């Protein structure tokens, strides 16, 4: 095929004008420099990557560079990036955008990500890749800026929708693309209708085993690649989850999808060393904890409130006090005053916090950066005060901090103080891979939050083995959770990202509520034990299934 030849002639008029006007003319040196500047920037071959050489400060891993090359050269810029969590999909995407921009193949880019990640994307693209990405804030941003990051929910809403649909995008990137599995949703149809030449779908979920998901994701990239819906189900489906012509389908999918696995990357992954501490209450703490059940026995509080109180009591008396005081104010009557009185007395009698002391001992012993996670603000404040009293400075970290404050606290922790006391790990998390010790001072009932906590330090860039210390108070709700559930499902050993998929798949996203129900409705410890056992078996069963599936999928790749 004969290529089209297009001469830029927009300069003719200006040149003729300067001839007529006898100038102005450039200086000789600048004329040479202009030519030199362009000569240096020439990209002499179709193949290979230019971008890494222009990013001398960015440490790229070989699998990231190879992924970018494959996407551009073999997949022609339309691909699903499905690396396992923590291998740097954002870096791969950034590298691909950069390469295309350097080559002048891409100018206008739209990046759709979950709302909580918008600013993180913007900052990574700017600081690591010198890509002038901006967060969408005002309607004019869509047309005025070349590289825009937004949430899909904003982009698909009016007045934005119409403007976004009008743009001619060279490249569209969608993070967490597995959320687009249903072709009937507004999000799917919105993405499908965008004008784009190149497209990257990022997901950590291996999609091999879910047929409709594969079909609709691939059809976003390359309509017809897997046939139309009808021929696809005729060729590959037998039942809802089972596949026929599996090998053929996998071979096809692997040509539009890159999935790097940890074990294939040749990277050194730090070990995770987990230690659980079964910490006994002091006598005064025990007395206080035990006294709480009298509130329920006398019908003053609901089972749910009791549970909350018990969990707080396991953390610190400061955490329990706030709730207790509120309950007291709303439910106290002259009649039950005699019930409340001894409880407050026991609370006041507590003279030290067993867990805090354990933490102190541990921190001194570790003698390195330590992150402490607690569920409660009151415990966070108490711990900071307690550590300070014992000569250890710390900084706080809360999910509600503004980005600036988060970054500031991170800096202080990295450079100045030994301990960071945090209440929340999720959301716009920060990366703390310069620290390698983490104390779970108390345990959230949502196992996903544990995973998010660990994910802060167990990630690419972590150079040491990661130490996780779990605190549970002996013979309490907390020790049940740790011993009967979390340890049984190997929560602390789990690969980051796996649990989410498992819970999603068995429709168990609200584990915390399930756990609460078990505690509230059980009559005895024996019953709690049986029910928690059941829950862990369900999770374990799915985990084993997946491991097997993944194994099959992996062998299908080779």
């Amino acid at each position, binding site marked *: *095929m*004969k*290529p*089209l*030849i*297009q*001469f*830029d002639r927009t*300069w*003719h008029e*200006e*040149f*003729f004008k300067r*001839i007529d006007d006898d*100038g102005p*003319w*450039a*200086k*000789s*040196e*600048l*004329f*040479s*420099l*202009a*030519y*030199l*500047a*362009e*000569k*240096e*920037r*020439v*990209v*002499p*071959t*179709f*193949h290979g990557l230019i*971008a890494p050489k*222009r*990013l*001398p*400060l960015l440490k790229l891993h070989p699998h990231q560079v190879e992924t970018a090359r494959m996407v*551009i050269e073999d997949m022609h*810029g339309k691909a699903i990036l499905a690396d396992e969590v923590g291998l740097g999909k954002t870096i791969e995407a950034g590298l691909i955008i950069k390469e295309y921009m350097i*080559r*002048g*193949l891409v100018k206008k880019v739209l990046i759709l990500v979950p709302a909580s990640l918008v600013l993180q994307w913007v900052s990574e693209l700017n600081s690591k890749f*010198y890509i002038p990405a901006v967060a969408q804030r005002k309607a004019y941003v869509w047309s005025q800026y070349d590289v825009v990051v937004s949430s899909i929910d904003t982009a698909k809403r009016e007045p934005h929708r119409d403007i976004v649909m009008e743009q001619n995008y060279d490249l569209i990137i969608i993070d967490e693309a597995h959320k687009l599995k249903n072709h009937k949703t507004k999000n799917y149809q919105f993405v499908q209708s965008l*004008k784009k*030449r*190149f497209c990257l779908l990022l997901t950590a979920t291996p999609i091999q085993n879910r047929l409709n998901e594969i079909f609709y994701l691939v*059809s976003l990239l*390359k*309509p*017809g*690649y897997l*046939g*139309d819906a*009808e021929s696809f189900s005729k060729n590959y489906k037998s039942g809802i989850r089972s596949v026929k012509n599996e090998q053929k389908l996998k071979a096809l999918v692997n040509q539009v999808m890159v999935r790097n696995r940890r074990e294939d990357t040749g990277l050194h992954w730090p070990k995770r060393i987990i230690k659980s501490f079964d910490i006994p209450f002091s006598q005064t703490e025990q007395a206080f904890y035990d006294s709480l059940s009298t509130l329920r026995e006398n019908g003053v509080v609901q089972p749910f409130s009791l549970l909350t109180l018990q969990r707080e009591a396991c953390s610190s008396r400061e955490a329990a006090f706030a709730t207790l005081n509120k309950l007291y104010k709303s439910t106290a009557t002259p009649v039950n005053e005699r019930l409340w009185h001894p409880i407050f007395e026991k609370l006041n009698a507590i003279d030290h916090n067993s867990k805090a002391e354990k933490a102190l001992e541990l921190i001194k012993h570790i003698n390195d950066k330590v992150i402490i996670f607690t569920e409660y603000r009151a415990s966070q404040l108490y711990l900071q005060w307690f550590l300070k009293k014992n000569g250890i400075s710390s900084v706080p970290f809360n999910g509600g901090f503004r980005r600036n404050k988060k970054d500031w606290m991170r800096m202080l922790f990295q450079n100045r103080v030994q301990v960071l006391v945090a209440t929340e790990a999720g959301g716009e998390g920060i990366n703390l891979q310069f620290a390698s010790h983490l104390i779970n001072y108390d345990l959230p009932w949502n196992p996903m939050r544990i995973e998010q906590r660990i994910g802060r330090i167990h990630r690419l860039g972590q150079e040491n083995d990661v130490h996780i210390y779990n605190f549970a108070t002996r013979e309490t709700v907390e020790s049940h959770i740790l011993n009967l559930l979390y340890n049984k499902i190997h929560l602390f050993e789990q690969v980051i990202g796996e649990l989410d998929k498992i819970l999603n798949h068995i429709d168990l996203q609200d584990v915390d509520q399930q756990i609460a129900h078990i505690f509230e409705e059980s009559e005895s410890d024996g019953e709690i034990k049986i029910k928690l056992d059941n829950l862990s078996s369900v999770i374990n069963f799915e985990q084993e299934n997946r491991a097997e599936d993944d194994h099959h999928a992996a062998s299908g790749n080779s």
Partner: protein
Amino acid sequence: MQQAEIRDFLVRFFSSSDCELLPISNPAQLKVKLTKQMDKLLMNRPFYWHYIEQIGQTPETATLTFRFTDQLDEGEFVHFGSPRLHQIFNTAEQLGRYIRLYQVLAPQSSPALEPWLGINMKISYQCDLKKDRLISMGLQLINGTLIEGFQTMLTRLDLNQKLPNYCYTLSPLITVKSGIQRIERFIESELESEPSEWADQASERWVKDQDLLDTFYEHQDEKPDRYFQEQKALKEQYQPKISLQLINVGLFYLQSSTFLPGLVKDH
């Protein structure tokens, strides 16, 4: 581009645009006091300039400090990927686009200078992939001699902005306009005779994806808008094209014996 070459480029750029190079303690650094023109081009602060000019105050132009190693703390780290360097590249291209130069001759030479049109262009071969090369053409505007690699030869000559006193220029027989056309025709015929496997392969990929698209909408007699949108996108993605962008252009008045026969192409 190595760090030393970048440093060299910046020194040449700032000196030739009349910015003052300030003394530095470390050779891995460069410190420049910008001129008003350069401040406006590089510092992106239109409001400052608007304000200063409104109230008629003496402006304080910016001082830039660059460093060429990441071992130092002071200054902006410049490397081949840094946005600042590319901003300066772009500025150099903007300031060095149109030129007119005269050759400076030894006193005994013939005083007649022949007119040449010189054009530097970037040729980009583009489908879903892209590569480029530069071409530098010179056309003698009296007898139509055409040479490639014009820019390289210019660097060997002593050239000046002004016509030397004892010299005069010969009148062109070919207009600049038709000169440009001659150069374009030459490049075009050269491009057409080049091997075009890359374009054939791109169009194979195009046809393949177009076929897939057709199967996807096979059962719909009335094709939806999306079909046509995708079709257009495929064309934009794969259609092989060669585009030529101007880098810079100029009129050069040179001595007739300047070019050695081996380097001259007949046309």
